[in-house]
């Protein structure tokens, strides 16, 4: 029991800090740069992202282990996972619009961006590759979501301050954002010694 809990905790820490999707694996950069201009949008994006990640991790785990594994067709996982994620996103988009219109107007715009995102696809793929069980898959999804939220919020708070800073003209906007991302990524390598086995 004890070791189970420590493993899940380790997974969350590893996925959010040590193997942070944005700063260590360099996935989802398009959304990272696009949405991190304002704190409000980045928080909305983080919430939507984490939710979709966990749901897609759970659903794709079920499909992978109970259908694809017995049928011996695991090589189809990329296509199937893309389909599953896109399907969930589309369905939640429709349902949210009816059930919670307020939430839809706040977060619905991000859902369309998410449907074919690389981080969302990476979570079930890594889950499948590492042979995680159901709880571990969920934990990995949550950890990745937290990691992405962390990256977005750090970046958004820096970029909001950056608006007032005296940045040399050639570096204004995107170049400066890339430089900052590189520096944060460098800082995040410091987490690599956090868990020693």
């Amino acid at each position: 029991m004890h070791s189970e809990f420590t493993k899940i905790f380790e997974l969350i820490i590893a996925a959010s800090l040590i193997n942070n999707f944005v700063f260590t694996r360099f996935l989802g950069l398009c959304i990272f740069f696009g949405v991190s201009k304002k704190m409000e949008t980045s928080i909305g994006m983080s919430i939507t992202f984490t939710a979709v990640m966990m749901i897609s991790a759970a659903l794709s785990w079920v499909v992978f282990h109970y259908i694809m594994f017995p049928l011996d067709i695991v090589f189809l996982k990329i296509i199937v996972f893309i389909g599953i994620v896109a399907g969930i996103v589309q369905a939640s988009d429709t349902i949210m619009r009816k059930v919670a219109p307020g939430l839809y107007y706040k977060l619905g715009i991000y859902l369309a961006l998410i449907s074919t995102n690389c981080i969302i696809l990476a979570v079930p793929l890594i889950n499948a590759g590492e042979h995680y069980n159901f709880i571990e898959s969920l934990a990995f999804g949550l950890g990745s979501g937290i990691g992405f939220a962390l990256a977005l919020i750090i970046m958004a708070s820096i970029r909001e301050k950056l608006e007032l800073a005296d940045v040399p003209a050639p570096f204004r906007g995107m170049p400066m954002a890339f430089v900052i991302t590189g520096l944060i990524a460098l800082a995040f390598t410091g987490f690599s010694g956090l868990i020693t086995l």
Partner: protein
Amino acid sequence: MFNGSIIKIAVIAASLLTCYASAAYAGVGGGVEAKEYVDFTAVLKFTLIFLAGLAAVFGLGLAFAAKRFSVKVDPRVEQVLDVLAHAHCGACGYAGCEQYAEAVVNNPDVSPNFCTPGGAKCAEAVALITGKKAEMREPIFARIMCQGGWSKSAKRFKYEGVEDCRAAVLAGGGDKSCIYGCLGYGTCSRVCPFGAITMNADRLPVVDMTKCTGCRKCEAACPKKVIEVLPASKAVIVACHSKDKGIDVRKHCQVGCIACGKCVKVCPFDAPSISNNLSRIDLDKCKVCSMCVSPCPTNAIVDFIPHRSKAFITDKCIGCLICSKVCPVNAPAGELKKKHDIDAAKCIGCGICTAKCPVQAIDGTFNAIEVFAVAAAKKKKKAEAA
């Protein structure tokens, strides 16, 4: 759509599998155990069944969700959304263009002319889609209520921080000795989504009236609340917000209102009034005659009409007497159904009669060319429609 794409993918996958039959003996990797031999027909069979099953489940699920959770969206909302200006400026009073489009379609009380950046064209289009009547709304412009540039006003200290009014105001309320005046660090020019505000050499914002849409972004951003958004026709304003006593205003600034009351005495319509050591012009009473501009000892009153050339009546006049009714100084004279005459000595060139004349018979004022062009365009449109 989703269903079809999955089937397409399945067909492609199946054809790929047959093409690379010989390569499939090698291990696949990535969580899949390598195998000596792969039973092709079984794999192909399961693949097709599985993908078809998945596609069916998702297709049916999505179709069910779309049916069960359908939200009726009025097609007119999309049409309205297309014609709006998409500045997302909030000038209409709604959070964004979508919200306004929804409101204007669903709520019969919402007027179609709220989209300020879209202008009259947009209002007409929205009215056409929603079946409402487009009424011309007077355009509004941002007016800078301060003339105290850096050369004309005094400073309390030297500010060397970030070049932004919102930052400067944190340093003890800004570096200007007048606490009501424009700080001149150009925050308004940066927040303007239309590029209508530029900073002049004396560090005062200048509003380009051809670009300004009256969206009120600058009004909200200005930490000193120096900017007011006012109707375009009210072109004579007291460009000062200082509530200091006259003697203090003089110390801080050369062009501030000292509340001497000369404008109150000279105005034929009782528009200006003095309260809290500041003169303010009542826009409902003001006829833009500019008679208060020259008596003002500190030049605090600004006339936004570029030149006040005298009006004269052309042969088109039908003698309706409207001009004599609207004139603030009673310059036009004449009898009904006869050509009128404008007394050049009395005329102040405010252009009100030019704008109001039903047959465009009054020429010579600053706005004549513009008014004639608009009238000609309307006539052309009417002719085309007929």
